[in-house]
């Protein structure tokens, strides 16, 4: 989705405002919104990919207020949680509005497991990799020149606009991961290789004052071979 969230390379947002004394959760609701989304993900009701998709579908104006006008970041988590639980039929808008469960219940087929307080430490400390335990053919190898495809999907994607159509080099093969575009849409993990791709700053932005590069993790489906010569 070409949304406001895809903000890399934009201008006009002014200086970086820092507050070294800010509280982690200035208002109480923020810590609840934070923990709520984590607990909902832990229950299996939704995935991180879906959560990101939910943030991207919140109203652009409110989204902008959370990144530019001092509104709490956790508005994004709250909106994403509401949007996704509604999409999945787990909490309907009517239930939210009435603040009480409706006649319907959690849809059959969702095997949810409630995260209990005593299991939180283990959950937070769990070290399992997000890599999938399955093989998939790798389209590229380290050192290959690749071009990011010029895709404009209306759904969730992790291919930033600023690299689309630009040429880079595979720096590392991270292994096989779930593909966010299909995963967020409920179409399954579509397992494929994820690569670390290095784009020279000059390739992305034109002239730069010194040497530089942006390194981005991109999936096989985002990439095609490049026939551009090395620079």
């Amino acid at each position, binding site marked *: 989705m070409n949304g406001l969230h895809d903000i*890399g390379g934009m201008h006009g947002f002014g*200086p970086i405002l820092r507050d070294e004394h800010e509280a982690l959760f200035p208002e109480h609701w923020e810590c609840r919104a*934070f923990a709520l989304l984590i607990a909902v993900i832990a229950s299996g009701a939704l995935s991180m990919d879906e959560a990101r998709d939910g943030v991207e579908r919140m109203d652009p104006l409110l989204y902008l207020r959370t990144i530019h006008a001092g509104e709490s970041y956790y508005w994004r988590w709250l909106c994403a949680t509401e949007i996704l639980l509604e999409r999945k039929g787990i909490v309907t808008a009517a239930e939210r509005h009435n603040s009480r469960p409706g006649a319907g219940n959690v849809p059959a087929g969702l095997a949810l497991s409630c*995260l209990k307080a005593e299991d939180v430490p283990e959950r937070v400390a769990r*070290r399992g990799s997000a890599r999938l335990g399955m093989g998939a053919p790798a389209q590229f190898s380290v050192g290959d020149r690749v071009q990011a495809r010029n895709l404009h999907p209306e759904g969730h994607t992790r291919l930033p606009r600023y690299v689309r159509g630009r040429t880079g080099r595979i720096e590392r093969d991270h292994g096989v991961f779930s593909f966010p575009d299909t995963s967020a849409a409920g179409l399954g993990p579509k397992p494929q290789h994820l690569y670390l791709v290095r784009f020279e700053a000059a390739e992305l932005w034109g002239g730069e004052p*010194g040497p530089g590069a942006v390194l981005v993790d991109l999936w096989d489906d985002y990439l095609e071979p490049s026939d551009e010569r090395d620079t």
Partner: protein
Amino acid sequence: MSGDFKDPREPGPALRVKALEELLSAKGIIDPAALDVLVDTYETKVGPHIGARVTARAWVDRDFRQRLLEDGAQAIGEMGFGGMQGEDLMFLPNEPGVHNMIVCTLCSCYPWAVLGLPPTWYKSAPYRSRAVSDPRGVLREFGVDLGNDVEVRVWDSTAELRYVVLPERPAGTEGWSQDRLAAIVTRDALIGTGLIRAPDGAGAPAP
């Protein structure tokens, strides 16, 4: 019109979160007590002191440093660290002539397991928009003025890999203990928006 969340007919976020929490609790999907523990975990247990301790050890323990660069999650696991938003972790060593910096342009991915939850500026438009296209300008705002001979590598966290900068050990800290070293490692240095300078009198023996 659409989307003005300050519409007085709409409940504020506090009421909305409360409603969701109660509904999900009634449905048996979440346990409010688990939320308490999650909040406490990130308020009191997981934070940039972890990254500081890892860094200090990497500065004094060459073998650990090598393991850290090979598999960050595995190496910090030796120290009892790791987990959520740090399951797949790469440490990015700064070197003479190479400076690393992390960002997430698409949302706000951040290596929680090493740094805790990110500061607001990291999640805000000015940093996210300019880190990739004008990193030198961003660094100048943080008081870091890199020469044009230094290569700046910006790591945009678009996948589940999480990146952390491994800063250079400042001169004048020879012989310091790991604890003393950890105390000078800043969160911004681990993001790549700060450099670590030894405090005045750094060269003196530890008290």
